[in-house]
């Protein structure tokens, strides 16, 4: 026999960004509790709106499953005394298990006979477990931010105002923070009333009649279909950003899409400003024409029905008008600010107590950028543009617009710089120097933007590491991982010839020159290299097997483009070349013996006695130069192909040559030969790390 369980936690409006996770958490906890309580069921559904988190369990058994459990006791020898009576130990075991000795059975385990007690426990009624079970689930819930309310010493995401807890038609006896569970839910705040849920299966429909769409998916589809219908009617493109849709979805119980308009004169303000203002401040969806130009309309979602939408649109238009007027004011005021005055203000903004003001940071960016421009061989003109870009890349931080919308940093800088007569390359460079801003973002397209972006990021990383700020675990307050990943991405996508150490050097020199008191944190360079190593490893692991990653990284990752090339070539060969294992085995064997070689011993050709070792030496000599050349040219496939050419000679060598010869000189010479080959092979990868 089974009945459905319904549990609805009625709340004051939960922050939209927490709701989906809270709903899933409630579901998970319920499923786990049912399992732990041995209550069978045919599925759990979860629902959520701003004011409620709900689970519905279908066909929950009315009784727990019975269990029968065998418990092992003492051995027969101990359980029975000399006269064949139950010993004290056996009687004690019986007591502790709540069974009588007559119920013991004997069973053999590894040649010894033991007594066993069989414990049967009959499942109890589900209804007697639900009260404690559901209370426990609520108490165990966790949220990113909790609060207390009233006089209760209980923390939850928002105050609990009602509870519906039903097992079939029966109300589960349950009380949390003075709220007693019942069968009465609350409908939409304004359109609905209180409503009796006669049984769990009625929940979704009863709430619908109360103007609450509890099903998240249904609500989302309704919002989308209304937006699409509007777009079609008007011939608009309505940009639906996922995270905004998600937020809106959890701000409403009955969604009704409406649109409003704003004065087309505001379109003179940069499009990004208008979009950000609409999205961030008002949670509006911006509207575009077919060509992608912003139109003076916005789309919003009301929590309610279609009643008096004109009043609501008018109200929203008024708010947006005030917002956009502010934006316009900021935009106009900002343009009165001379870039030089803005730069002077940067001197007063603390970047970091130990790393000086933003003005100091800008000077470092400039110095690092100049060094990198030389390394990357920028033309004189481009280098000068990079210098200028570096000098002014942060000036927009003191503008009112960026103060209001920090996400517009760079965007405003580009716009204002262009208006102030800076060259196109410099204006664009200001925007680009923040790229890539997030995972998956584009890298700077221009070399000017690229150089300044590299300089800014490596300055931040080296600066933080130099004063001991190194990300650990989830602690990365300065987003150093993202910035390091950005550098790696830039080097790769632009196929830069600059090595990591050269990038470090540029920043380290600058920090050294500008630093007055504090010495660098110890192991600075090692820590930097390891930190970047992890970023490179992570990047490679997206497409390449872990052992291949380990193998190529062991050969160094200073040249990021090269290590990526080697990883791909090796992965490809491992996958597609059936006999590659033989090559790898022979190189590993070389490596193992090479470890015994004395350092710095050169091969003396005249000491090579046997044909196979002469053959190996000659083959190696023939490939050495072209192999190194292929590596230098970052042609990893070619390098690996050449290296694989050693296979037969190596195999032949091991087949007929006794490396550990009695003659010390000969032995040393053979080891030196292997060490030379090993050094070449390890310039590509440590093949011993490959797993077959």
């Amino acid at each position, binding site marked *: 026999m089974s009945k459905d369980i319904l549990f609805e936690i009625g709340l004051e409006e939960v922050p939209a960004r927490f709701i989906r996770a809270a709903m899933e958490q409630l579901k998970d906890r319920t499923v786990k509790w049912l399992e732990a309580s041995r209550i069978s069921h045919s599925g759990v559904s979860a629902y959520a709106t701003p004011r409620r988190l709900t689970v519905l369990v279908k066909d929950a058994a009315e009784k727990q499953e019975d269990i029968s459990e065998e418990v092992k006791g003492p051995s027969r020898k101990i359980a029975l005394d000399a006269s064949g009576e139950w010993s004290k130990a056996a009687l004690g075991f019986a007591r502790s298990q709540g069974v009588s000795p007559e119920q013991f059975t004997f069973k053999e385990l590894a040649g010894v006979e033991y007594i066993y007690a069989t414990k049967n426990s009959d499942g109890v009624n589900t209804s007697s477990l639900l009260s404690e079970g559901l209370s426990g689930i609520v108490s165990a819930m966790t949220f990113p931010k909790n*609060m*207390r309310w009233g006089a209760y010493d209980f923390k939850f995401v928002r105050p609990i105002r009602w509870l519906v807890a039903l097992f079939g038609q029966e109300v589960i006896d349950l009380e949390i923070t003075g709220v007693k569970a019942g069968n009465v839910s609350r409908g939409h705040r304004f359109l609905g009333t209180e409503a009796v849920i006669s049984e769990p299966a009625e929940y979704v429909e009863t709430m619908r009649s109360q103007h609450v769409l509890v099903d998240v998916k249904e609500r989302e589809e309704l919002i989308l279909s209304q937006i699409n219908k509007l777009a079609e009617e008007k011939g608009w493109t309505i940009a639906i950003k996922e995270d905004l849709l998600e937020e809106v979805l959890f701000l409403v119980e009955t969604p009704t899409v409406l649109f409003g308009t704003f004065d087309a004169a505001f379109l003179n303000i940069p499009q990004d400003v208008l979009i950000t203002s609409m999205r961030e401040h008002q949670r509006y969806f911006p509207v575009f024409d077919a060509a992608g130009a912003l139109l003076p309309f916005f789309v919003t979602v*009301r929590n309610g029905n279609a009643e008096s939408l004109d*009043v609501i649109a008018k*109200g929203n238009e008024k708010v947006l008008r005030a917002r956009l007027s502010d934006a316009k004011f900021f935009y106009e005021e900002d343009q009165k600010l001379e870039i030089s005055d803005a730069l002077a203000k940067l001197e007063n903004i603390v970047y970091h107590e130990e790393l000086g003001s933003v003005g100091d940071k800008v000077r470092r960016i400039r110095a690092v950028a100049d060094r990198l421009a030389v390394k990357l061989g920028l033309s004189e003109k481009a280098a000068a543009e990079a210098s200028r870009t570096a000098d002014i890349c942060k000036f927009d931080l003191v503008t009112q617009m960026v103060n209001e919308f920090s996400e517009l940093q760079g965007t405003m800088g580009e716009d204002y710089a262009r208006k102030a007569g800076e060259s196109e390359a410099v204006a664009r460079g200001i925007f680009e120097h923040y790229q890539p801003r997030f995972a998956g973002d584009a890298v700077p397209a221009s070399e000017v933007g690229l150089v300044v972006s590299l300089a800014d990021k490596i300055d931040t990383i080296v600066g933080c590491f130099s004063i001991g700020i190194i990300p650990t675990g989830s602690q990365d307050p300065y987003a150093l991982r993202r910035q390091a990943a950005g550098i790696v991405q830039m080097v790769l996508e632009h196929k830069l010839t600059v090595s990591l150490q050269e990038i470090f050097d540029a920043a380290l020199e600058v920090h050294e020159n500008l630093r007055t008191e504090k010495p660098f944190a110890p192991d600075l360079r090692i820590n930097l290299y390891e930190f970047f190593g992890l970023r490179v490893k992570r990047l490679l692991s997206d497409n390449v097997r872990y052992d291949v990653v380990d193998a190529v990284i062991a050969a160094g990752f200073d040249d990021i483009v090269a290590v990526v090339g080697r990883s791909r070539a090796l992965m490809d060969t491992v996958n597609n070349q059936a006999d590659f294992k033989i090559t790898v085995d022979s190189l590993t064997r070389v490596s193992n013996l090479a470890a015994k070689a004395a350092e710095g011993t050169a091969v003396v050709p005249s000491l090579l006695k046997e044909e196979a070792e002469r053959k190996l030496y000659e083959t190696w000599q023939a490939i050495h130069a072209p192999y190194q050349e292929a590596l230098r040219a970052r042609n990893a496939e070619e390098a690996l192909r050449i290296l694989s050419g050693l296979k037969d000679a190596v195999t032949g060598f091991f087949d007929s040559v006794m490396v550990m010869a009695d003659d010390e000189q000969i032995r040393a010479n053979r080891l030196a030969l292997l060490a030379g080959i090993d050094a070449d092979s390890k310039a590509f990868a440590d093949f011993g790390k490959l797993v077959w």
Partner: protein
Amino acid sequence: MNFQQMILTLQQFWSAQNCILVQPYDTEKGAGTMNPMTFLRSLGPEPWKVAYVEPSRRPSDGRYGENPNRLYQHHQFQVIIKPSPDNIQELYLDSLKALGVDPLLHDIRFVEDNWENPSLGCAGLGWEVWLDGMEITQFTYFQQVGGIETSPVAVEITYGMERLASYIQEKENVFDLEWVGGMTYGDVFHQPEVEHSTYTFEVSDVKMLFTLFNTYEEEARRAMEQHLVFPAYDYVLKCSHTFNLLDARGAISVTERTGFITRVRNLARTVAATYLEEREKLGFPLLKKEGADLV
């Protein structure tokens, strides 16, 4: 509904909920929360219900009376109830209805907004309430006041009166609001807005303000030594306002800023802790006030 009627309506409404109606506090402050009727009374176990209008000064928001939305001084209508009642959201929505806002004809939403006042060591969780997209109220469950965990928890409702009025009266410019029969907001407040902005941004004597800050701080400390909580707190408020004037004048660098905020916060914390001690010495008298409406 004119501005004056709005105030009267809210006073009437919350009076009927047994709130004590007090008058604006006579020391300059940036928000109704800083009124001792909120800041101090929301501490400790004693019940409390109060409502008042608070003229709030934000020197850096001054716009010489030229901006239709921003003001040197605006009005908050503040309600504090401790412990927070179970039906507080419903009460609040009823108060909007009393102001003539029919929720069925509008879009009213509670949008997450966690409130913090670092200079007073206060933090709370709650919402901003949106009326057709406009923020009209800040709704907060205090979790911490003066660095002390609240228990029981007080709920604070702060109506932004100008915002609400501009919506109710359908006015674009705050100075066009009707205060009372034929008198506009501008008639009453425009000149002070212009003059306070001029004073704040151009005239104030920075040197004197720095001296005042130090003097007020010192006096707050001296009063604290005598366990004179309320007088000490008045000087904390004066410090805070003086800091705001200096800040608006651009006289405080970013580096110094944190230092000043910390100084005010430390004072506020001491005052809060001492207030609790003093109430305890008195035996938390409001706990025993049987028969009083607020209990």
